[in-house]
């Protein structure tokens, strides 16, 4: 009978303690830099290798490229879209990207909307997504082939 009473002490002790909940819209959890949030895209780093499209398990990335004006051998990105309706934020696109053109930010909010079409984000939105993450803004593009797969 008296072991039961000990529990009252526990709850009363918690009653006095500092509260741990976060008042969400005013306070926000700071996610670690590795957090797999909404992507950011660097158009000038992209070499249009199409690996992210191939590796995407949910087929939500679409892109098109065009010939570069300065160097006709090179391709530059023209359109780049991610449909966040289906994106599972698995990180494979950033993992295979040889130039770190597509990276993930710690952004975890502001994707909810009443409209499915709004989840479709284009190159402009993705490149303007200035949120910190596990990347360096001005990092020099690594040599292609250092990470992931290059055909």
């Amino acid at each position, binding site marked *: 009978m008296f072991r*039961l009473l000990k*529990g*009252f002490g*526990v*709850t*009363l002790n*918690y*009653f006095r*303690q*500092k*509260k*741990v*909940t976060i*008042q969400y819209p005013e306070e926000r959890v700071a996610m670690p830099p590795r957090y797999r949030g909404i992507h950011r895209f660097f158009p000038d780093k992209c070499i249009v290798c199409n690996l992210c499209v191939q590796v995407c398990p949910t087929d939500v990335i679409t892109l098109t490229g065009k010939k570069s004006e300065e160097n006709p051998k090179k391709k530059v990105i023209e359109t780049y879209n991610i449909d966040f309706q289906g994106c599972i934020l698995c990180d494979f696109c950033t993992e295979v990207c040889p130039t770190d053109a597509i990276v993930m930010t710690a952004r975890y909010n502001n994707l909810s909307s009443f409209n499915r079409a709004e989840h479709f984000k284009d190159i402009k939105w993705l490149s303007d997504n200035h949120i910190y993450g596990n990347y360096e803004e001005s990092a020099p593009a690594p040599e292609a082939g250092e990470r992931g797969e290059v055909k």
Partner: protein
Amino acid sequence: MELVYIILYAVITLAVLLGAVTYAILFERKVIGYMQLRPGPNRHGPWGMLQTVADVMKLLMKEDIIPKNADKKVFILAPIIAFVPSFAIFASISWSDNIYGADLNIGLLYFIGISSITTLGVLMGGWSSNNKYSLLGAIRGVAQVISYEIPLVLSVLGVVILVGSLNFRDIVYYQESIGMWLIIPQFLAFVVYMISAIAELNRSPFDLPEAESELVSGYHTEYSGFRFAFFMLAEYVYAYAIAALATTLFLGGWLGPAFLPGIVWFFLKMSVIVFFWFWLRATLPRARVDNLMRFGWKVLIPLALLNIVITSIIKVWMG
């Protein structure tokens, strides 16, 4: 003229009760929230003061849904039958030396008799909803409330024997005359009373009739909107009533040092009891039906009887 006073008293009591229930709910949510390391409601008004008001507004503005296969008349009647007695019993409560409704000779009897009617509302609500969870909840509720009424009454009998009156005011005056609260000579009765009161109120850990993890919501599963509000109101008003009764019988009613008026003491004591119930809810898991019944019949009733025997002996011995 007297009728006007009675009506006025009733209206004021109702208004005060509604306000008190509003803040009892807030108080409960705050207390449990604090015990669970969260601040509780804090969005409506400062410190969440308007939270319950918002909830009530929502309930009142909701569409009135009566299930298609429900027994309509009974379904509509049930919340009223549940609520009216819980309010009616406040007529007999004496808040302080000079604030009271009816100075009934059989106050205690009236209180216990009227409060039992609420069970009928529960049964009607559960039965008429035509929902299996409601039915199970109602049957559990009735079985539980009726079983625990017995130890409740028996525990109170000790006080009655000691005081020699069923009148609430006499009981308080008696405590004044002997110079101590009856919780001391009647401690066993107080414990039995508090435990059976929890069961009577369907509060945790004896909230089986509305055990949300098992029976979804028990007897009021199908209720929504203001009918649901009535059930909730009945529950909280009843909680206050039982706390008021405990205050009167065991904690000396309005008695207390003179720097505060009697009615404040009364409410303070009630609040302590109500806090205790919230504390229980934050701490204990729900009991099992069979254990609950066994505990009621095999532990509480014998204890209450024992208390009566001891009290009678003391009474006779002391003359």
